């Protein structure tokens, strides 16, 4: 059981917990945060799994770096939509 493999397993647990959150939580902001956490779980699996034999792999690391920035942007867009939804002016 290498540290990389432990990261990957923790990532799986995080992903499943967050997926449960997306289904069970009702408040939009909580749901968005849970969705974001699902992504973090996936990143942890990608990076952890790639270095499970002890050697770091730059390719998944670069992909995850890309993914983190995209997930920040997606979360911001989702929050903007949620705020618009909360404002509740259906005149769009």
């Amino acid at each position, binding site marked *: 059981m290498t540290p990389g*493999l432990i990261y*990957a*397993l923790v990532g*799986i*647990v995080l*992903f*499943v*917990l967050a*997926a*449960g959150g997306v*289904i*069970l939580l009702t408040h939009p902001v909580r749901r968005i945060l849970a969705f974001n956490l699902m992504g973090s779980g996936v990143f942890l*699996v990608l990076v952890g*799994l790639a270095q499970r*034999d002890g*050697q*770091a*792999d*730059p*390719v998944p*690391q*670069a*992909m995850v*770096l*890309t993914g*983190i*920035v*995209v997930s*920040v*942007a*997606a979360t*911001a*867009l989702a*929050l*903007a*939509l949620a*705020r*618009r939804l909360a*404002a509740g002016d259906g005149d769009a």
Partner: protein
Amino acid sequence: MREAVRIAVLLGGGALAVGLIAAVLDLPPPAVDLPEAVAAHMAQSGVEHPVTAVLLNFRGYDTLLEVAVLLLALLGVLTVVGNEAGTPGTAGAPDPVLQTLARLATPLMMLAAGYLLWAGAHRPGGAFQAGAILAAAAVLLNLAGVLPAWAVPRFWLRLGMAGGLLIFLAIAAGLLGQGALLRYPPEWAGTLILIIEAGLALSLGLILAGLFLLLGERGERR
């Protein structure tokens, strides 16, 4: 009914977790040795850090499209807030200690961003980290009440936000003669990557800051 859904999700989630963990533990070793392939081509990449080499050279088009996705998200945020009447600021009186600290921290953060941008060529760092720090500086100034939230951006801010992608696209277009998208000539690779990264760091900082500041409380300066 609600309780039944909860139990079903818990059981399903547990089964999913067990299945995924079993699958990961059962994975065979990778068929392609990517670290080996990266290490073999490092000499032509123009940089000395493998992650930067993958990000901006070997898989540069991923990064190119990523910046496009960021701009798209920003456009989405602009569309959503564009026709929203700015809510007046609700924060109390500005805190002088917080404002002074934010003003002191900002130049240091810009310095750190510049260093990270430069360091990306040979150690962990690069455009994304530098952009994140620049954006964090803007957010800090906004939260401390020094920098007001942004209204819908005008030409120069828009140009700054799109500039990183435009520079990247211009270099990609200029290099199409090399036969493949974003194949740099090895002797120019280091310089081109630094130009792209500098543009990206500035644009990413503005975009990430914009994602926060465009959603901030607009209206009177607090």
